[in-house]
């Protein structure tokens, strides 16, 4: 187990910054998620931590040791790739044993460790098969076993669930997090899927254009976004942003906090005239699409709630004052975070 840290880390491809001076440190044994849209530099950052990509500038530290100049095999890391990257010509057993062979372990010790890892991941039955004879979920577990077998100090996972179908992904999320909790190894997990990030991460680092916009627990990221990018990247549908002419700011609020105004609500609530265009019934919930002034806004309710809004009508909706976030109109930065910086 170890702390992973990057300092002022940058990577430029032909002058374009893929990763732009990032400072980030994990806690020991933490499940840290790098979240961002495609092309935001999260995979490049992970590959630099793994030693697969030399940084243009800056340093990578693992367990307090600068490893920037070390090759991947000297870093005591294990990586799981999006494609799983199993060796197609080897059996499952030999795939898992490969890092042990490379480390020069005796045959008996190799066998013991492969059995142990295969047992943890429940793939004992497939050890003689080739990767092409396995399903996506089984391949993913073989890739995890291969990562686990040499007891690395850090796991680097690059979108390991993106090749699974939606149903399988939910259970794989559960398995993966349980597995990480059991082995307690520091894990850096790259994904563009906010559900994965929110559901599994101890902390999430939200990235955009090679920079980190915010690092925090899922709660902090969702409820207390540092800027409009984070506010709109997380949440589905995203946070509503309404320009406030009086203050020259952007007011942000989550669709689930936007409900019809009632006379007994009192001063604690801020009222908005809401013009509803359309409603969507999604089984568990219901969405209203409409406008506040010129700005689009969405409201979300449990499907069984007795909200009665006529399409095409304008009614008073309200948001609790505590649930309103204020952002700078041009920079998009939060104005009311009590001095906390991202």
């Amino acid at each position, binding site marked *: 187990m170890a702390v992973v840290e990057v300092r002022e880390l940058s990577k430029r491809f032909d002058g374009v910054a893929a990763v732009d001076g990032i400072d980030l440190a994990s806690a020991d044994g933490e499940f840290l998620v790098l979240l961002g849209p495609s092309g935001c530099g999260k995979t490049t950052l992970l*590959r630099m931590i*793994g*030693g*697969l990509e030399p940084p243009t500038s800056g340093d990578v530290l693992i367990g307090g040791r600068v490893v920037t100049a070390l*090759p*991947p*095999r000297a870093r005591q*890391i*294990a*990586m799981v*790739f*999006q*494609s*799983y*990257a*199993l*060796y*197609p*010509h080897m059996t499952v057993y030999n795939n898992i044993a*490969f*890092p042990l*062979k*490379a*480390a020069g372990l005796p045959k008996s010790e190799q066998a013991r460790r492969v059995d142990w890892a295969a047992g943890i991941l429940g793939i004992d039955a497939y050890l003689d098969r080739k990767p092409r004879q396995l399903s996506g979920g089984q391949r993913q577990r073989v890739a995890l076993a*291969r990562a686990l077998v*040499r007891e690395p100090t850090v796991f680097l996972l690059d979108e390991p669930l993106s090749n699974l179908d939606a149903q399988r992904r939910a259970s794989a999320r559960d398995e993966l997090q349980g597995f990480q909790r059991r082995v307690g190894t520091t894990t850096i997990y790259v994904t563009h899927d906010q559900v994965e990030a929110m559901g599994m991460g101890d902390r999430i680092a939200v990235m955009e254009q090679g920079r980190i916009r915010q690092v925090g627990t899922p709660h902090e990221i969702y409820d207390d976004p540092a800027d409009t990018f984070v506010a709109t990247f997380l949440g589905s549908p995203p946070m509503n942003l309404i320009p406030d002419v009086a203050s020259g700011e952007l007011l942000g609020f989550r669709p689930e906090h936007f409900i019809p105004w009632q006379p007994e609500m009192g001063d604690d609530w801020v009222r908005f005239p809401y013009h509803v265009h359309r409603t969507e019934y999604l089984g568990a919930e219901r969405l209203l699409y409409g406008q506040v002034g010129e700005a689009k806004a969405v409201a979300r309710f449990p499907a069984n709630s007795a909200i009665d809004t006529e399409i095409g009508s304008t009614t008073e909706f309200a948001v609790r004052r505590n649930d309103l976030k204020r952002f700078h109109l041009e920079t998009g930065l939060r104005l009311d975070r009590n001095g906390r910086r991202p």
Partner: protein
Amino acid sequence: MSAGARVDAATLPGTRQGRYWLDRESVLGPVLLLPAVIYIVALVGIPLVLAVLYSLSDVTIGDQSIDFVGLKNFRDVINNSTFRTALQNTFVFTIVSQAVVLVLANILALVLSADFKGKRLVRFLVLLPWTTPIALGVLGWLWTLDSVYSPIDYVMRQVGLLGVGSPLGPDWFGTNSLWLAYPDRARLSVLIVHVWRTLPLATVILLAGLTAIPQDVKDAANVDGAGFFRQLFAIRIPLLVPIMMVAVLYGIVFTFTDLIVVFILTRGGPFDSTQVLATWAYFKGIEGGSLGQGAAIALFLFPVLVGVAALMLRIAKRAETV
């Protein structure tokens, strides 16, 4: 389809039943295949049948009537000591040159898959021998191996490998190597030219195979702690084996059936020591006028080529099913 619909279709302007006959696969397929079939029958099928007929007859250039003599041509050929030399040479040239090509092509492909300045130029230069017409390339080699003006000899003289006191032994004490005058040196020369000629294609094929290995797999091997040689022998080469087979089979066909290298370099000499089946068939059948014997010699190439073709088809089939 209802009768009404058919009437409607027929009344559409410009629609006639006959216009779309080429759209039918049962028509289009044979039409597209026909040129290839004609080509193969005319240039492969008919000559092959003729060769079998000739080999069983006493046909010569002077008397082209086909009178069957059974297996007499084959018996005569086998009893000729030159046949054994030619057969042995054909196999030795093919096997040794392809073994060397396999090793060199692997090294070259690895080098060319790395990033370095001037890579495109080096790739171009490596490919050149393959793009040169074989006859021209071999003529170049004929001059390079010239008994008097050979630049190889010049270099060897400069570094002291040729001339009195050569460390290679008394055989190299002369002022020239006379590459094509001694049987061993002549055979070595033919081998070198074969390697030179088939190496580029094998390299390009292996290079394509190398780039087809997913970057993730190479990265995984890196992270898993494999050094260069473990990655090479445990990951890259095993993954390249199918494509190596393709390269080697091409090389075998080119080398096994080759006539030009020996024909231009040595004309089978000295004393028939570099004769191969293809050249000997030519000298016997065309220059010697004994078409029947020439055909019989050439037919000895057939079983090996059938085997190679069968292997190729198997590889192609396996590639299709993956």
